[in-house]
């Protein structure tokens, strides 16, 4: 963390599901807002809340395994804006949560964070895994 290290969205992680984390960070980056990743100990919700208080942008995201928590310091103790477990194939959704973390600061309309996986996404996901498996064990 440099001079302006906390002028960023704080992303705190514990054993994060890497695919989801990557999309989450991509979502923040695409919106043009800086972020800082660090690991945390202790209770995820509480730690994310504290991180949002420390971030000068007032925004923190906690990632614990496949659970993602989005906290905004201006929520004034009314709880996180998002707290839920994602399936490994819900990359789109992780991306949108990242977009929203940035959009909170930018004051832009938020994207839908509810799960809305399409048949096509499931098929794509399955295909991807099959290909990965094939690559891992060459025929």
């Amino acid at each position, binding site marked *: 963390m440099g001079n302006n290290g906390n002028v960023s969205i704080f992303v705190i992680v514990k054993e994060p599901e890497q695919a989801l984390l990557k999309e989450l960070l*991509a979502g923040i*980056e695409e919106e043009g807002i800086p972020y800082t990743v660090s690991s945390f100990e202790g209770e995820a919700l509480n730690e994310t809340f504290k991180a949002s208080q420390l971030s000068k942008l007032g925004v923190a995201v906690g990632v614990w395994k496949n659970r993602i928590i989005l906290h905004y310091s201006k929520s*004034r103790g009314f709880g996180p804006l998002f707290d839920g477990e994602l399936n490994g194939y819900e990359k789109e959704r992780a*991306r949108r949560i990242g977009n929203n973390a940035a959009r909170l600061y930018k004051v832009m*309309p*938020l994207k839908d964070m509810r799960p809305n996986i399409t048949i096509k996404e499931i098929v794509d996901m399955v295909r991807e895994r099959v290909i990965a498996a094939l690559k891992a064990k060459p025929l």
Partner: protein
Amino acid sequence: MRLIAGVDIGNSTTEVAIADIENRPRFLSSSLVKTTGIKGTPDNVAGVKKGLEEACNKINITVSDLDFICLNEATPVIGDVAMETITETIITESTMIGHNPDTPGGVGLGIGKTVFLDELDNIHSNEEVICVIPKSTDFEMAAKLLNRATETGVKVNGAIVQGDDGVLISNRLKKKIPIVDEVTYIDRVPMGMMAAVEVAAPGETIRVLSNPYGLATVFHLSPDETKNVIPIARALIGNRSAVVIRTPEGDVKERVIPAGKIIMYGARERRVGIEEGAEKIMSSLEEIWPLNDVSGEPGTNVGGMMERVRQVMSELTGQGISDIKIQDILAVDTFVPQKVKGGLAGEFALENAVALAAMVKTNRLPMNIIAKMLENELHIKVIIGGVEANMAILGALTTPGTDKPLIILDLGGGSTDSAYIDREGKVTSIHHAGAGDMVTMLINSELGLDDFNLAEDIKKYPLAHVESLFNLRYEDGNIKFFDKPLDASLFARNIIVKPDEMIPIPTKHSLEKIRAVRREAKKKVFVTNAIRALKDISPGRELRGIDFVVLVGGSALDFEIPEMISDELSHYGIVCGSGNIRGVEGPRNAVATGLVLSYYESLKGRA
């Protein structure tokens, strides 16, 4: 005590006034309820009873305490509205992607041949290309491949990306290029064609692709070809990013759709194609005014609309369809956002359209049937009072500061009704097509809402922008705070603030844009109709002779329409403002009040 109730059944609203007329009329109570059923039909009785009960409750009496009920002789006027799109933008062999993603990447102009990301390896070094990147490719991989191609000497000058990855890819490039992202139908992009990608800096708009000579420079167009790219340049004006691809037969066309002719019968006959626009229709109308009837070319959209109006009116009154005459129309130029046929990213184009309101007058409505039914149910004597216009004038004259000669403009839902009383007390009246419902329709279609209730709310209430989870900013700049966080779905949205509810407006339009559309729609309908009405009813069609104009009716409650009309009329030195019936009712209850006053006068006359 001698209690009398005046009852005014309107198309939308039923109003009641109760007075004791023992000595001079002393008004005690009033009420306002929704009209039940179509005006002039027995269905109205339920609404009338509800209105009477509400008014009686307020002064702790029961309906049976009333001595007498005066019903309006309802003006048999009905209005209808419709909309015809008259242009259509079609892209043949997709050439243009003009949509505005929130987060494009890079900045500048890039020109080259379209190639797929996977094909980059086969491209000769020094070739100039625009790379097309599908969503299935991860942004890191995409950036890696682009960097590798650049290293081998391929000139990658821009990219068209399907996912929302523009900034992500740009951040990973060694040589920055303009990137347009969120291009949904990327599979429709023609490959191997010359393409130009332009992204402007934040806060600016593109300058090259929105200029026909810019396109000519980029694509080395001949003068004749340059003429054909006007619609492309026009469609891209105001965008922050755009892609134009040149295919041999590629073209963007604006086609005029023949929507049918409208045929107006007055002093003479006039036929005008809807696609000639509202101005032409209205000036032709003025030439042959007053109107006897209007029809639409059979088999066309206008034809259908005119028949629908006639049908409804005929069913209502039991008159034959051929006896129904359309006695006024109001045409207004408008535009409708519509998906461009052949677009690649769900682009919208603003198509020109004409909105039409029509007004029909028939014989007397069967009010006597309603009167009979009321009498039977309530056991109170019910009479039908004088002509609605006369009653409205009588009521309007109770507004402080008014005097004869005076004109009232009743700004309703379906029609704008006006009446004139001269110095001697003679009343004339006239009806014009187009009022509140037409405003709602214009808001609905110009903003592409497809939700009439939402449009009605946008019409009636001020806008605000939710600036944080705890505050909003009204369109006038005032700020309001909340104790609890607002729903996240409202965050950063434009909303309508109703007394008990906040409704997000689900479009990307800016607050200023919504406000401008709302105000324009009100002006197009009501300022136009106010001038038409005043001209048609003033002696000698001369506005300068009028002193007082009183606005009444539902749309006079609007928070800006009365000011718009007043502003326009102030040029003529006319006193104009919302009525304030009996100094207390505002612009409501004019007819109900007039019915009571007229009955009292008639008693005096007899005595």
